[in-house]
C-alpha cells in the first residue's frame, strides 16, 4: 500500500472549511473569565505610579494585576537561549521598569472581554520616560559581539581575506532587510485552568506544547507533571508561536490567584510587541572571484538588534558557510545591538531568508560584473562537499534544481542585458537565486494503536500549524501498516500524548514523522508476531490476513506500538535542503511598481511524502517571500521607539491580486541520513531566496540594484 507519495487531501480539511475545527480561543471553557493586557505607552523608563482604583470599580471587573500584586515568578536560566522555550528572559509584571514600547504593565480580569478592555482604559499610569534606543545604521556602530546560542557566532574556513584580496574580481556591498512580524491570522491566545489538585491545563496557541509546559513549570514553580498543554489547531505559527510569551505567564499566574479559568487573547496591535518578530539586519558582503565567476573567497558580516535584556542573534551570515564552494576561504560573523524592543524571534525563514538575500544578490552582482549568466555562476560554484565541515552532503540536488528549474522557466530565452526585455510600457525582468536550509534533528516519540475493527490511531504530541501534520502522519502510518488512509485517525497537540519536539524549522515531517513510522512498524511487528505465534490464523492457508481477522481469531482487542525516534547527531554526511528559484517581474518604469509575472521554484526536500500538502507549503512560502521582497516592513518611529503600523492595514501582506500562478518542482530523492522516512525540511526553505530572486529580476528589468528590502515604489523612481 503506497500511501506515501500520494496527493492525499487534508484529514482536517472539512473541519477547517466548515468552521468545525476549534482553535484555542474558540474552545468553550466552563466559568471562564477574560483578561485584557494593558501596555506601556513609552519605550524606555519606569512607572512612577499606577492607579488602578477606577478600573477595579468598573462593571464586571474581578481583579487588576500589576507588578505590585502579581506573584513573583522564577527567573529562567541565563544566558537566555534560543532552544530554550522562553520567548524572552524579562518576566512580565515583576517590576516598574519599562524596557520596550507596549510592554505589558497590567492585566484586567473581568466577566467579559469588553468589560476588561474598558476597565483597562481607566488605569492611570505616570511614566518617567527616557529617549529610547532604536536600531538603524547609526546604532549599528555600537554593535557588540554576542555570546553563542545556536551556531558559532563567527566562522572561518581557509583565509577569506587573502582569497578576496588576491581575486581579480571583487564585489563589496551592504544589504539590509526590514523588521517583520509573523501576523498569523489567529491572534495569540491562552486559557489557563487550574483544578482543585493544583494541576494546570493551558489551552494555548503554540507550536511547542512540551516547551510551554517546561517553561511554565520553571517560571511558576510547579512540577511539569502537574501541567498539561493543549493545542489541536493553530491558525498559523511561522515561528511566532514556538516560544512562551508574557501573556501566557500572566494568565496562568492570575488564574491561580483568582482560582478561576482565565482567557487572554492579544489584540492584533499587541501581537507586535508581546510576541516576537524578525529583526532588521544590516549585512556586509565581500566576494572575491576569478573572471569566470569561480568564487575564491566570501566574507559575510551581519548586524542585528536585540532587546535590552537578551542576546538574540539572527544568524543572517549563516548561509555562505555551506551554500557555495569558495576555494580560498569563507568567513562570517555576527554582532548585535541592544535597543528598546522586545526580544526578536525566528520568523519564517529565520536566519537563512535574510542572509540569502544578501548573498544571492551579491552573487548576481558578480555575474553582471563579469558578464556570465547567473545560473552558470552558481553551477560553477556548486559543491558536493560542505565547505564548513568538509563532509560530503547526504544529498544535494542543487545542480538538478538549477538546470531543471531553468528549463521549466525558459531561462534560455532571457536576454542578459538589463532593461532589454519589455512588454508594452512595462520593463520585464528575470532573476534567480539559490537557497539552502538547515536540517534539524530532534528526538520524537509516537504511539500507534491497532484496533480490532481494523482501524488504527496515531498519537503524538506534535502540532498542526496549517502545514498538514494530521494528514502526513495518517499517510505514514497507512503506508507502514498497509491500511487505507481512511482507517487511520490521528491525535496530536496534547502533552498527555507521547512527547514530541517543537514544530519549527521544517522539522516535523522528518523527525516527528519518523517517530510515527517507527511506532507503526512496532505495532505491525507485534501483529506479525501474533500471527506467527498465536492461534491458527488462516485455516484455508491464505497467506494474507487482515488485522481485524487476526485480532478476532486471537481474541485481541488492540495492539500498541511505540516509536522512539532518537536521531544521532549528524554523522559522516552534512544534511541540508536546497532550492533554485526563478522569478519574472514587470516594472512600470514611470511609477516604480513591481508586480510578479510568474515564478518557478525547484526544490530538493528529499523524498516528498504528500505532493499536495508539499505544493501548498511551497506556494505559501513563495507568497511569504513575495511579502519579504516587496511589501512587508514593521516601521519603528524613531522618537517613540515603537512599531507604528501595527495591523493588516498598515503592515502589507500580499493579496491574491499580487500573486500569479506559481510553478513548483520537487527534485529531491530519498535521504536516509536526514530521516528514516527520507524527507528533509521544506516549509522554511520555500521562503528562502524568494526575495533575492525578485530583487535580481528587478535589477534585470530596470538596471537598478535595490539592496534594501522591501523594494517599495520610491526605491525605483
Amino acid at each position, binding site marked *: 500500500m503506497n500511501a506515501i507519495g500520494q496527493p492525499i487531501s487534508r484529514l482536517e480539511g472539512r473541519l477547517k472549511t466548515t468552521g468545525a475545527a476549534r482553535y484555542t480561543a474558540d474552545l468553550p471553557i466552563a466559568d471562564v473569565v477574560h483578561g485584557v493586557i494593558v501596555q506601556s505607552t513609552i519605550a524606555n523608563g519606569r512607572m512612577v505610579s499606577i492607579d488602578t482604583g477606577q478600573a477595579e470599580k468598573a462593571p464586571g471587573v474581578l481583579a487588576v494585576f500589576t507588578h505590585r500584586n502579581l506573584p513573583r515568578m522564577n527567573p529562567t536560566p541565563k544566558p537566555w537561549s534560543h532552544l530554550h522555550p522562553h520567548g524572552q528572559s524579562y518576566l512580565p509584571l515583576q517590576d516598574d521598569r519599562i524596557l520596550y514600547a507596549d510592554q505589558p504593565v497590567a492585566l484586567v480580569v473581568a466577566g467579559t472581554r469588553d468589560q476588561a478592555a*474598558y476597565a483597562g*482604559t481607566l488605569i492611570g499610569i505616570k511614566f518617567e520616560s527616557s529617549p529610547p534606543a532604536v536600531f538603524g545604521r547609526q546604532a549599528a556602530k555600537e554593535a557588540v559581539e554576542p555570546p553563542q546560542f545556536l551556531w558559532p557566532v563567527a566562522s572561518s574556513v581557509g583565509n577569506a581575506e587573502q582569497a578576496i584580496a588576491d581575486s581579480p574580481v571583487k564585489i563589496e556591498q551592504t544589504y539590509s532587510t526590514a523588521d517583520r512580524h509573523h501576523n498569523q491570522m489567529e491572534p495569540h491566545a491562552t486559557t489557563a485552568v487550574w483544578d482543585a489538585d493544583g494541576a494546570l491545563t493551558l489551552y494555548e496557541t503554540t507550536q511547542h506544547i512540551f516547551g510551554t509546559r517546561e517553561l511554565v513549570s520553571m517560571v511558576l514553580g510547579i512540577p511539569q507533571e502537574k501541567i498539561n498543554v493543549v493545542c489541536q489547531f493553530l491558525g498559523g505559527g511561522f515561528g511566532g508561536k514556538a516560544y512562551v510569551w508574557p501573556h501566557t505567564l500572566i494568565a496562568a499566574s492570575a488564574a491561580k490567584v483568582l482560582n478561576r479559568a482565565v482567557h487572554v487573547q492579544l489584540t492584533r496591535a499587541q501581537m507586535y510587541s508581546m510576541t516576537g518578530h524578525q529583526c532588521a539586519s544590516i549585512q556586509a558582503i565581500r566576494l572575491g572571484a576569478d573572471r569566470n565567476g569561480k568564487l575564491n573567497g566570501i566574507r559575510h558580516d551581519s548586524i542585528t538588534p536585540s532587546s535590552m535584556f537578551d542576546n538574540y542573534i539572527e544568524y543572517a551570515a549563516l548561509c555562505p558557510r555551506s551554500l557555495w564552494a569558495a576555494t580560498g576561504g569563507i568567513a562570517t560573523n555576527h554582532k548585535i545591538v541592544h535597543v528598546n524592543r522586545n526580544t526578536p524571534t525566528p520568523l519564517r525563514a529565520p536566519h537563512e531568508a535574510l542572509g540569502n538575500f544578501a548573498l544571492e544578490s551579491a552573487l548576481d552582482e558578480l555575474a553582471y560584473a563579469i558578464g556570465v549568466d547567473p545560473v552558470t555562476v552558481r553551477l560553477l560554484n556548486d559543491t558536493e562537499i560542505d565547505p564548513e565541515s568538509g563532509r560530503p552532503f547526504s544529498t544535494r540536488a542543487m545542480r538538478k534544481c538549477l538546470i531543471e528549474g531553468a528549463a521549466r522557466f525558459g531561462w534560455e530565452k532571457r536576454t542578459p542585458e538589463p532593461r532589454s526585455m519589455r512588454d508594452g510600457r512595462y520593463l520585464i525582468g528575470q532573476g534567480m537565486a539559490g537557497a539552502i536550509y538547515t536540517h534539524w534533528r530532534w528526538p520524537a516519540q509516537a504511539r500507534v494503536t491497532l484496533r480490532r475493527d481494523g482501524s488504527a490511531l496515531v498519537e503524538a504530541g506534535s502540532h498542526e500549524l496549517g502545514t498538514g501534520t494530521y494528514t502526513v502522519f495518517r499517510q505514514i502510518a497507512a503506508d507502514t501498516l498497509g491500511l487505507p488512509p481512511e482507517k487511520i485517525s490521528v491525535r496530536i497537540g496534547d502533552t498527555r500524548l507521547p512527547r514530541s519536539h517543537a514544530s519549527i524549522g521544517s522539522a516535523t515531517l522528518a523527525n516527528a514523522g519518523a517517530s510515527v513510522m517507527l511506532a507503526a512498524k512496532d505495532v505491525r511487528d507485534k501483529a506479525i508476531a501474533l500471527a506467527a505465534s498465536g492461534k491458527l490464523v488462516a485455516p484455508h492457508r491464505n497467506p494474507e490476513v487482515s488485522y481485524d481477522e487476526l485480532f478476532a481469531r486471537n481474541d485481541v482487542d488492540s495492539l500498541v506500538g511505540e516509536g522512539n525516534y532518537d536521531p544521532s547527531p549528524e554523522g559522516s554526511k552534512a544534511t541540508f535542503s536546497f532550492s533554485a528559484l526563478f522569478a519574472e517581474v514587470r516594472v512600470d518604469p*514611470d511609477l516604480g511598481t513591481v508586480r510578479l509575472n510568474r515564478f518557478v521554484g525547484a526544490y530538493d526536500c528529499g523524498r516528498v511524502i504528500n505532493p499536495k500538502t508539499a505544493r501548498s507549503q511551497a506556494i505559501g512560502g513563495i507568497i511569504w517571500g513575495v511579502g519579504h521582497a516587496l511589501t512587508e516592513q514593521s516601521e519603528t518611529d*524613531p522618537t517613540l521607539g515603537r512599531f*507604528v503600523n501595527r495591523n493588516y492595514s498598515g503592515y502589507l501582506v500580499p*493579496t491574491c*491580486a499580487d500573486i500569479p500562478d506559481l510553478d513548483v518542482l520537487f527534485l529531491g530523492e530519498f535521504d536516509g541520513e536526514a530521516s528514516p522516512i527520507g524527507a528533509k525540511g521544506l516549509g522554511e526553505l520555500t521562503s528562502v531566496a524568494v526575495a533575492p530572486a525578485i530583487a535580481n529580476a528587478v535589477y534585470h528589468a530596470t538596471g537598478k540594484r535595490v539592496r534594501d528590502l522591501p523594494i517599495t515604489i520610491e526605491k525605483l523612481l
Partner: protein
Amino acid sequence: MHQFTLSRPADISAAIAAHAQDAHAAFIAGGTDLIGLMKDRATLPERLLDLNRLPDMSYIDAPAGGGLNIGALARMSDVAAHFEVRSRFPVIAESLLFAASGQLRNMATIGGNIMQRTRCAYFRDEDDLPCNKRRPGSGCSARFGLNRNHAIFGWSDDCVATHPSDLAVALTALDAHVLVRGPGGQRSIPFAEFHRLPGDTPERDIVLDRGDLIIAIEVPARAEGRASHYFKLRDRQSYEFALVSAAAAITADGGLIGSARIAMGGVAHKPWRLTAAEAALRGVSLDDTDALKAAITASFTEARPLEHNVFKVELAQRVALRALETAGARL
C-alpha cells in the same frame, strides 16, 4: 470596549434632531470606518444613530439631461455597478471599484465614504499617541515621525495627514455637490469646500456642523465625464489605500485638450485639485507628453514634501499624467 447605545431614528428629521442636541452622538450607516475607529478608540461616541432604515436614501438617479444624483445611503458596490454611472462617469465607478474589498463595498455607503477619516497610523493607534486630530493639543507625531504616506500640499505643523477616500477625489474633479440637511434646513456644498485643510484645527475634517446629515451627492452634467479615469497607485495590487491617486476628466477637439479636470488623492488633508495645471493644459496636444508634463508641473511649485515623502512630488506628477493620458484614450 467603550459603552454606547444604538437607536434607529424613524425619519431624516428625527435623525437630525437627535444628532443636533447631542454632542456625543454619531451617525452610523455601513459602519465600515466608524467601527474600526471605535475599536481603536480614535472616536468614542456614546450614542449611535443608525441610518440604515431611513427610506428613500439609497437611490441612484441618472437624469435625462446628464449628471447623477446619488442618495447618501447608496452602497459603494451598487453605485460602481450602475450602468449610467459607468458610462457617464467612469472616473466615479473606478474610484469605487479600486477601493476597499468586495465585502466592504457591499456595506459601505456613499455618504460614509466621503466622511472617512485619515489612515495616519498615529491617529489610529489603539494606544492614543500624540495626535492633534485625535486629541487636540497633544502634538503631531507624524510631522517629524514616519510620514511617507502623508501630505505634500496644504499641511500645517499641527497635522500632516491625508484624506483616504478615492471617491472624494473623483467628485472633487467633477465639482460635485454635497446635499446636506441640518436643523436650519437644506444646503448644497460645493465638493471642493466640503473637506478642510488642517490649519490649527485638524480635529475637523469637514465643514459639517452638529445636526448636519448628508442627504445626497449631486454630480452635474459634465462634458468631461465620459473621457475620465481614476488612477490609483498603491503599494500592493489590491485592498490598499492610495499612495498617490489621480482623477482626470477631459474634453478635446482635434487632439487638443479643451477642458481638463484633475484632482489628486494621497497628497493632502483633502482631495487636491490641480487648478493651475488644468488652466495650463487648455489647448495642449494629448500626443505631446512633454507639454502635458510641463502643464502638470504648474500645480507642483507649491508642493512642500516631508522628510519621508520627497519622492511623492515627482511621483504625483507622473500619476496625474497617467490618469490624463488614460482619460484621453477614452475620447
